[in-house]
């Protein structure tokens, strides 16, 4: 087994991995930038090593510094989390060359799937359906325009190296192509250090459904069913769930088989996700391979909830050379799980990301609810990194039950000090389309655009804002309307 893991990440995912290590009796090393000296992941680890200044290129993306930190601390494995270096084949190779176990797939699998052009070729050969499109070898504007005409409008211009919507543009017709190419190139270069572009026909109003896979070093590959991530805003996932409300059982089975075939085709090991677009409804629906994410996903907890599997522990075991403890027929989906991503952003100001100090952070506590957070009360949310500060996962026997549970959890989640999208998330799960399970990937950007109301609170909250002005000690009753208060409150008032 692995003895000491260096977690090459920050925020909630670093904490998630550190906790799994603790449970398995594995020592841990955190790394941090100057913006994160007192961050929760630094506090939670057995040891912590400074990487450098706040900008990612000088800290969390600094492969050399991270490997040096692993050597200096005697770590024998590196877990990359998601984002940063998680899908960087050169980093995975460098870990191996330094004698470190990379908790993820082999570098060859990352490379094969990291480039969309090679991923498509591999998938086509493995018999997995793909959307029409290409990455021209000649990356000139003229060659990309010719490729765009072959794929047909509307189309997507994407960073060949990327994911998560960075460096991606929708182009409705030839007129908008030149601007999209230059914008996507710039973002691709900034985010991934590689500005190779890919053009692809846009399947209009698809659902986004992905399949979790897990493979060991002994040839076993299983899938852990699907996650429906159709609730997206500008290609960024906002809400994910499992099972998908859109899949007929036969389609689910075929997608599971396709995902396993995809993983086998690239000699995959460890946890990965095969993303598909679904076009159409019910039994006539078709699915297309979108991309494979060669890492743990943000939304992995919904799979953990419905399958009862700990994916991070499984990653560590598989990385250590152990065989998968389950066969495909041992796995099933039980109940329904939903995840909402809580972002520090202002939905009413164009979802502008927000940095600042978290003055109050009180996550919901109730049965069936899990909160994976990257901040605590008093944390600073730096401008340098992703604005996602927490994930709320609700699990219940039915989809309706999971929605009700999520609604209750979000309503009692208290985050003060910077704007968040919590009110927006509540508006989304309350929307008839979400309740009906008919949300597609265009919903939030089109029909759901009106759900982003300005931040505002009820008159009762203004009364409390003024009461706080008096800075009264806890338990002091400021007004008498005893009948309206429950007995515990009155008791607190007496004690005060």
């Amino acid at each position, binding site marked *: 087994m692995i003895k000491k893991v260096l977690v090459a990440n920050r925020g909630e995912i670093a904490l998630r991995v550190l906790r799994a290590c603790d449970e398995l009796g594995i020592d841990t090393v955190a790394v941090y930038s100057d913006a994160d000296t007192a961050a929760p992941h630094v506090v939670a680890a057995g040891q912590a090593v400074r990487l450098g200044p706040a900008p990612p290129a000088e800290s969390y993306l600094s492969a050399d510094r991270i490997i040096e930190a692993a050597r200096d601390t005697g770590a024998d494995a590196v877990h990359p989390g998601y984002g940063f270096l998680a899908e960087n084949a050169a980093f995975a190779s460098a870990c191996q060359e330094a004698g470190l176990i990379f908790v993820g797939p082999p570098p060859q699998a990352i490379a094969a799937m990291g480039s969309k052009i090679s991923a498509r070729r591999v998938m086509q050969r493995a018999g997995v359906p793909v959307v029409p499109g290409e990455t021209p070898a000649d990356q000139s504007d003229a060659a990309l325009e010719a490729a765009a005409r072959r794929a047909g409008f509307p189309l997507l211009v994407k960073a060949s190296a990327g994911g998560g919507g960075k460096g991606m543009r929708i182009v409705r017709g030839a007129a908008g192509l030149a601007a999209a190419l230059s914008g996507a190139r710039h973002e691709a270069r900034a985010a991934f250090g590689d500005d190779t572009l890919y053009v692809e026909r846009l399947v209009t109003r698809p659902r986004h459904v992905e399949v979790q896979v897990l493979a060991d070093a002994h040839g076993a590959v299983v899938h852990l069913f699907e996650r429906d991530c159709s609730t997206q805003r500008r290609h960024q996932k906002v809400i994910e769930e499992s099972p998908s409300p859109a899949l007929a059982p036969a389609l689910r089975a075929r997608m599971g088989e396709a995902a396993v075939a995809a993983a086998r085709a690239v000699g995959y090991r460890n946890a990965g996700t095969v993303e598909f677009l679904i076009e159409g409804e019910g039994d006539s629906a078709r699915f297309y391979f979108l991309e494979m994410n060669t890492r743990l996903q943000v939304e992995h907890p919904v799979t953990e909830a419905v399958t009862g599997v700990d994916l991070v522990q499984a990653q560590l075991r598989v990385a250590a050379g152990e065989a998968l403890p389950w066969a495909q027929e041992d796995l099933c989906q039980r109940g329904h799980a939903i995840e909402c991503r809580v972002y520090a952003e202002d939905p009413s100001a164009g979802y502008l990301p927000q940095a600042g100090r978290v003055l109050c952070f009180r996550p919901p506590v109730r049965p069936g609810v899990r909160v994976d957070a990257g901040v605590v009360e008093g944390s600073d949310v730096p401008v340098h990194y992703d604005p996602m500060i927490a994930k709320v996962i609700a699990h219940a026997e039915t989809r309706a039950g999971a929605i009700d549970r999520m609604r209750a959890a979000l309503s009692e989640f208290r985050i003060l*000090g910077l704007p968040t999208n919590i009110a927006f998330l509540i508006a989304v799960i309350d929307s008839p389309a979400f309740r009906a399970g008919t949300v597609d990937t265009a919903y939030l950007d089109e029909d759901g655009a009106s759900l982003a109301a300005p*931040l505002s*609170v009820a008159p009762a909250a*203004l009364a*409390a804002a003024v009461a706080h002005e008096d800075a*009264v000690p806890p338990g002091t009753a400021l007004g008498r309307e005893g009948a309206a*208060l429950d007995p515990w409150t009155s008791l607190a008032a007496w004690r005060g």
Partner: protein
Amino acid sequence: MAGTRRFIVRQGENATAVEVLADGRIRVGEQGDVFAVTAVGAGEYLVSRAGRTWRVAVAGPPEARWVGCDGASARVDVQPEGRARAPRVRALHGALSAPMPGTIIDVAVVVGQRVRAGDVLLTLEAMKMELPIRAPKDGVVSVVRCAPGELVQPGLPLIEIA
């Protein structure tokens, strides 16, 4: 407890008069509803009226006070009436500033250039996203105070349109 005290609570563009009554209850709005407020923990309040109770969390100084209730939150400015601060000065007339700290990655215009409302003037990169800064009106670029690669802070004028 002392007599009635009045406050102005600003929430974005809206200002609400809030009055602490002699008995400690709080009226929100002129002739508005009266609430009983009980502190139940650090920054936690139970606010009740006519058999309904809200649980409200409060944090921060008066001029940047955060309140949260039922999943909604907002920043408000609480001031004693008569001592109300002048509204914060927005950027200079015709000037555009960064909405948040970030790096200028592109300056699309030069001084003297005629622009139309909605034209992209600058592109700012912040928190891994590109944010276009657009002209709010038609006009001529009179001053450019930033260059690509520059780190900028919110509120400082970056570009002016005459």
